[in-house]
């Protein structure tokens, strides 16, 4: 489906209460346009729960359930198996959670559902911290980032560890489809959601979704920042379909000086990285280049 062919019919409607410039809201709106009406949604505690489903207001125009925080994949399993029993196997079951609900507290149920190859579509919208509770560090928060639990103090400043590589973890489960998406690359986004929608078995998508409130950037710059994340390699767009890995967009890593400049611009546009020293940025660059090499090598050996 081409972007211009996308339906005008909203399954995640306007009127929700997300912050201005919320990457998560952009992701869900477009996601639901592709998935359509024959979808059932499981959503744990996260910003999306609050801005999309606060009684009596409801942005979802499909069946929707929130059970808890760490069990989205288990609940989605229950939904899908029930639908199968009812002869409604055609209905897509979507489990969608944030990075905390997926990479941290939800990884146990997620891993088990992937291992069983449950016929569900699991999506992590990645805003790189616990935003709903007020910007705390998650396993998906990048190195150096300020959060309210990695504050900039006189002795320590920012997150001391690197971002957990969830797509690789999910690929290691050998599931039919794993893909990374960005709210700034909408055609790639549509392609991947459409592909995932039409596949059977466990499908995992991770959407890079900037959060102006938590990342401390201009609300008008969400898409621009997401674009730069892909250009710098901070977020790699790739997909793994039945074991075959394909890079969808190469970052601009050459020459390294130019890359450092681009990376510095990306980081400096966000208040959460304001305190970083040049040597911190160098640490991040080394990490990005190594990660990109790994991703590229993986794609080469799993063509």
């Amino acid at each position: 489906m081409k972007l211009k062919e996308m339906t005008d019919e909203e399954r995640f409607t306007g009127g929700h209460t997300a912050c201005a410039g919320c990457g998560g809201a952009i992701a869900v709106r477009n996601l639901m346009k592709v998935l359509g009406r024959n979808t059932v949604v499981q959503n744990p505690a996260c910003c999306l729960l609050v801005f999309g489903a606060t009684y009596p207001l409801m942005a979802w125009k499909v069946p929707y359930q929130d059970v808890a925080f760490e069990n989205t994949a288990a609940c989605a399993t229950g939904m899908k198996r029930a639908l199968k029993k009812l002869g409604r196997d055609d209905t897509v079951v979507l489990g969608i959670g944030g990075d905390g609900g997926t990479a941290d507290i939800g990884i146990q149920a997620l891993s088990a559902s992937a291992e069983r190859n449950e016929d569900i579509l699991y999506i992590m919208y990645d805003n790189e911290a616990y935003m709903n509770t007020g910007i705390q560090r998650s396993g998906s928060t990048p190195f150096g980032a300020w959060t309210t639990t990695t504050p900039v103090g006189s002795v320590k400043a920012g997150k001391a560890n690197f971002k957990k590589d969830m797509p690789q973890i999910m690929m290691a489960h050998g599931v039919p489809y794993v893909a990374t998406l960005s709210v700034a690359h909408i055609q790639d986004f549509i392609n991947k959601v459409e592909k995932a929608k039409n596949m059977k078995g466990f499908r995992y998508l991770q959407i890079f979704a900037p959060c102006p409130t938590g990342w401390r950037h201009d609300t008008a710059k969400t898409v621009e920042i997401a674009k730069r994340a892909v250009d710098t390699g901070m977020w790699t767009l790739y997909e793994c379909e039945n074991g075959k890995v394909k890079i969808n967009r190469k970052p601009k890593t050459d020459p390294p000086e130019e890359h450092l400049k681009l990376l510095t611009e990306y980081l400096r546009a966000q208040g959460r990285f304001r305190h970083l020293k040049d040597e911190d940025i160098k640490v991040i660059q080394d990490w990005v280049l190594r990660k990109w090499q790994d991703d590229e090598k993986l794609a080469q050996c799993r063509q």
Partner: protein
Amino acid sequence: MPKKVVTGNYAAAYGAMRSRAAFVAAYPITPQTFIVEHLSEFVNNGELDCEYVEVESEHSALSACVSASATGVRSFTATSSQGLALMHEILPTATGMRLPVVMAVVNRAIAAPINIWVEHNDIMPERDSGWIQVFCDNNQEVHDMVLQAFRIAEDKRVALPVIVNLDAFILSHTVEPVDLMDPDDADKFLPSFRPPHYSLDPENPVGMGVFTPPEYVQESRWQVDRAMLEAPKVIGEVNAAFAKQFGRDHGGMVEEYMTDDADVVLVAMGTASSTAHEVVDEYRAKGKKVGLVKLRFWRPYPRDQLRKIAERVKAVGVYDRAISYGVGGPSFIEFRSAAYGLQVPTVDFITGLGGRDVSSDDVRLMFDRLLETARTGTVKREVVWINTRGVEP
């Protein structure tokens, strides 16, 4: 069907099969494991047409059941002790969404120290979860109550989840003759599943468990409270319907034995009531007017029935296989509240923790103490620990 000699775990699994559970999420824990093993055998032998999911934890087991039930199918799981504790977060979710999930809980001690034998300290923290809870004292009752549990849970007037409790090993691993139900009889008793309220249907989208501000939550709590208050009526109806169809009357909320003219009564839950039953016969033969109240339903609590009994006796003892540290047994605390304002002396008996046997001698001690209390009108000791090293009962 002729009776078969089976364990309590088999009886529970068989009851779930005859209930045509359409979704089972299973995770092993001693001494519950055989329930999910038997169910997987029923599924793999084609006897039970069911979506069976081997989840990675009890937390996911109940989570998956909640969502399967919400999507519109009859859902069952089973657990015990630490597994129930891990599920704890999800129990009130099933209640709040008014989902008729049924779960067998094999009552086992909670760590520490770790112990796999019978105790009721695992289930007591779930008292306020909004689940209906029944305790069984034989394997036939376990089998029958799984079917009854679904019918109670799915009644529109109730629409609450139900736990069927059975004592670890004493029932779970002990064989007894059980009349296993024929499918046609079971179908006649338990109609095919219809969600009591809403389900997650793409043709008619609804939201469940959504974020709800203070303006609305209190009313939903009140509705659950109303349903719990309404439940004894439904439990009575279901018990009567079952007795009529199968000739087995388990007594509904409570089962009274020799209470009509009793001077003293003992209130007991689970298998200890079987032992007490024997001792009542023995004491009656000696002319001692003792009676037994088998407390079957723990939630809803049979407050009115117990109060009526307490009004006409000279002393009441409550046997607890659990302890609320520093206060006494949970069942005793509850009874005290039910008997508020009455002058009847009450005594709490605690023993059988961590799987220690509750012997006829232990029950004799209980009745002797109650008869003494009735005679003297004074309570020697309010909370009596029996058969505890270094502790005088």
